[in-house]
């Protein structure tokens, strides 16, 4: 019954999205008020039925309704309740339904925000409707989660144990809220081109969506990296894996868009460019989905590869990107380009920010696509791994970070570069000091690490200075918005510290330990006490009891595990991490060797900073978004905008 309800809800949502698309686009014309109310009504109905379908799938998963093929393939009765719920988006069909559900939530926000006027809203709803239509067709024809099996089996096949993890339960929804948030920016950009009405209105309307997308992409990537760190058992946090790259590319363009849309909104600069970035950002979300879902790449993220799905997404991709670009090429030349600013101004720093971010994005794109393209072209197989990105991507980010402190200090249209340099002198001093200290104290000596510390403290110091300059010591009086760029930029520096710390000064030990034996890694002494068998809810595990010693005193006991999931026949390692906030001691249990056990131990200095930095960035985004939403509540039609 649940299956039929879900199926019916999806079909109704499909019809309503078609009506929403048609009426919305008609409503973009002046005077078509009737069509606009039809579009809003259809959009609301679409939201209701998509949420109903999602609820039906979740219910089926919770009650273990194995008459649904999807539930049978990906669940089992002994799976903990949390993973029955989050497992809904752990597989291809469910995650596509989640995608449409998130799209529905954004559609609802567009209906109620009514930003940028009736015609813009209507056109944006029309474009959202087309996107919803495409994704619903995709679900119903290639990835239907409500397919039945007859007779229904008694037990399901279970979920990939790597995915049975709280971090990963949250990671996909976060990324999807980000990806799909960019769809709202895309829809507003297309709407602006369709209506050709109000130059900066669309940027103002789209900005909360861009912010929401950027925040959730930041959190999603941070969570994903944290998950890889503690779950994969090698202490690595970023692998330049194509699937990671697929989420990094939209983030890079969203960051560029965040800045350029602000300039468009405030001074009318970069109008056409911001439109193009909004189209590009969502295009990369779609490309990311294509790469992950089509089976072109295979990894832990891509499920059953099915060429039909790949072809469908590819066609959707070409249609969406192609028509958006055609619209852009047709309409954008008619926009009045009004940028008038001095070379020393905020606009110039935003432009450079965009240059480096777009180049960085292009680097990741080329590095991700090239092996696939080359193999298709002449059959040559190559690998593009971390060393490639270290050479090509890292210098771009170094240049970007060197420029970051100037942005907040220079005014719009005409800034004072000399004054900005003078204001930044203390930050430069702090940065130089940090570099010298690193060279003097940290071993092994690393010039690259010292350089990275200079850069990180340059950015962090400048952020702190900026806050000081604005607040003049009275931080309580400071509007929340003043913290936005400060927190986000400082987060960038903090993440860099973490990356450098773990990369350069990592202590690493891979050894076979017998019970009672001790070993040292990065200043810690470890003693393997015993390895015992434990029984989990749906796994059996070998758990090591390892004491961490300091001067013969036990300061901590850690329990890395090796978990065997019999239903899936898979073994995963459950790492143990002891963190001080400044350093992680990281233990993973390997195979049994005779009477001993392989133990992998890492001392990762500054590792937590990688994720702290991500949180700082997201908090900065929240500060900006919160200010926006409050302003909207207080003065719905205000055309004035606060300092960012």
């Amino acid at each position: 019954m649940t299956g039929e309800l879900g199926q019916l809800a999806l079909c109704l949502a499909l019809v309503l999205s078609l009506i929403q698309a048609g009426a919305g686009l008609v409503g973009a014309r002046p005077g078509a008020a009737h069509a606009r109310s039809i579009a809003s009504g259809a959009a609301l109905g679409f939201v209701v039925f998509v949420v109903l379908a999602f609820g039906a799938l979740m219910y089926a998963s919770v009650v273990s309704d194995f008459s649904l093929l999807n539930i049978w393939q990906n669940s089992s009765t002994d799976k903990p309740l949390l993973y029955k719920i989050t497992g809904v988006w752990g597989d291809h069909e469910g995650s596509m339904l989640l995608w449409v559900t998130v799209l529905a939530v954004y559609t609802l926000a567009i209906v109620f925000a009514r930003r940028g006027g009736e015609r813009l809203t209507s056109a944006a709803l029309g474009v959202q409707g087309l996107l919803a239509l495409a994704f619903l067709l995709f679900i119903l024809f290639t990835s239907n989660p409500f397919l039945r099996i007859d007779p229904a089996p008694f037990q399901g096949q279970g979920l990939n144990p790597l995915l049975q993890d709280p971090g990963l339960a949250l990671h996909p929804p976060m990324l999807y809220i980000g990806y799909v948030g960019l769809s709202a920016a895309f829809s507003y950009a297309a709407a602006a081109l369709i209506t050709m009405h109000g130059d900066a209105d669309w940027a103002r309307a789209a900005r909360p969506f861009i912010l929401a997308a950027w925040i959730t992409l930041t959190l999603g990537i941070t969570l994903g990296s944290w998950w890889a760190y503690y779950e994969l058992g090698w202490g690595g946090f970023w692998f330049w894996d194509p699937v990671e790259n697929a989420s990094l590319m939209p983030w890079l363009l969203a960051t560029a868009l965040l800045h350029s849309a602000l300039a468009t909104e405030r001074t009318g600069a970069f109008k056409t460019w911001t439109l193009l970035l909004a189209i590009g950002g969502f295009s990369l979300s779609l490309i990311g989905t294509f790469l992950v879902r089509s089976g072109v790449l295979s990894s832990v993220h891509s499920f059953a590869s099915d060429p039909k799905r790949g072809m469908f997404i590819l066609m959707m991709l070409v249609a969406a990107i192609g028509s958006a670009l055609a619209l852009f090429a047709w309409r954008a030349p008619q926009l009045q380009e009004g940028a008038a600013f001095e070379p020393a101004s905020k606009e110039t720093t935003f432009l450079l920010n965009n240059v480096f971010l777009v180049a960085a994005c292009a680097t990741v794109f080329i590095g991700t696509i090239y092996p696939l393209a080359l193999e298709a072209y002449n059959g040559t197989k190559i690998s593009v791994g971390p060393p490639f990105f270290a050479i090509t991507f890292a210098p771009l980010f170094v240049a970007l970070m060197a420029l970051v402190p100037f942005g907040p200090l220079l005014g719009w249209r005409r800034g004072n570069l000399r004054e900005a340099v003078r204001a930044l002198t203390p930050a430069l001093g702090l940065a130089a000091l940090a570099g010298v200290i690193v060279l003097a104290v940290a071993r092994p000596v690393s010039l690259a690490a010292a350089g990275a510390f200079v850069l990180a403290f340059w950015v962090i110091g400048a952020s702190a200075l900026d806050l000081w300059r604005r607040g003049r010591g009275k931080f309580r009086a400071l509007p929340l918005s003043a913290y936005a760029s400060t927190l986000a930029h400082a987060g960038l520096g903090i993440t860099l510290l973490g990356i450098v710390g773990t990369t350069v000064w990592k202590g690493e030990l891979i050894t076979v330990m017998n019970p009672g034996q001790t070993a040292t890694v990065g200043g810690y002494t470890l003693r393997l006490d015993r390895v015992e068998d434990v029984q989990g809810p749906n796994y059996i595990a070998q758990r090591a009891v390892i004491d961490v010693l300091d001067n013969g005193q036990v300061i901590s006991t850690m329990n890395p595990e090796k978990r065997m999931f019999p239903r899936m026949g898979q073994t995963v390692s459950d790492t143990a991490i002891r963190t001080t906030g400044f350093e992680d001691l990281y233990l993973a249990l390997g195979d049994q060797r005779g009477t001993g056990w392989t133990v992998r131990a890492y001392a990762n200095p500054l590792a937590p900073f990688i994720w702290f930095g991500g949180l700082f960035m997201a908090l900065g985004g929240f500060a900006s978004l919160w200010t926006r939403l409050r302003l909207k509540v207080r003065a719905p039609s205000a055309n004035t905008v606060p300092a960012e």
Partner: protein
Amino acid sequence: MRRALFIALFALVFALPAARPAQADASLPAAVEAQNGPEHIADPSLEARAVALQKQFRCLVCQGESLDESNADLAKDLRRLIRARILAGDSDKQITDFLVSRYGDFILMKPPLQEDTYLLWFGPLAVLLIAGGVASWVVVKARTRNRVATD
């Protein structure tokens, strides 16, 4: 003109090369005879060389993992092979050449610079130069406009 440049830039960045679904790879290397190398070399400097080397090669049977971080049997064998070669006195270059001759460029995490990877290595630089050029042009135009407006 600027719009044409933007569009060209866009095409360069986003044009999706004709991708096709990857086929099951039939050319996986035959199992390597582990050349009796140890899993760990006692001499720290030689071990450090081995670790640095194994980060440069990919695990051939996994997705995107290096030999350094793979649990696959083949990766274990290759880690021992690298150590056996180091103990036999081979240079890093000899070991790299040996592995490439056996498994092809695919094993290199850092793709070689050759005719069919020029676009890979210089593409990002080209994008940077084009974007930088467009940006300079925008700044010059904006300054002119600003001066005209304030005069």
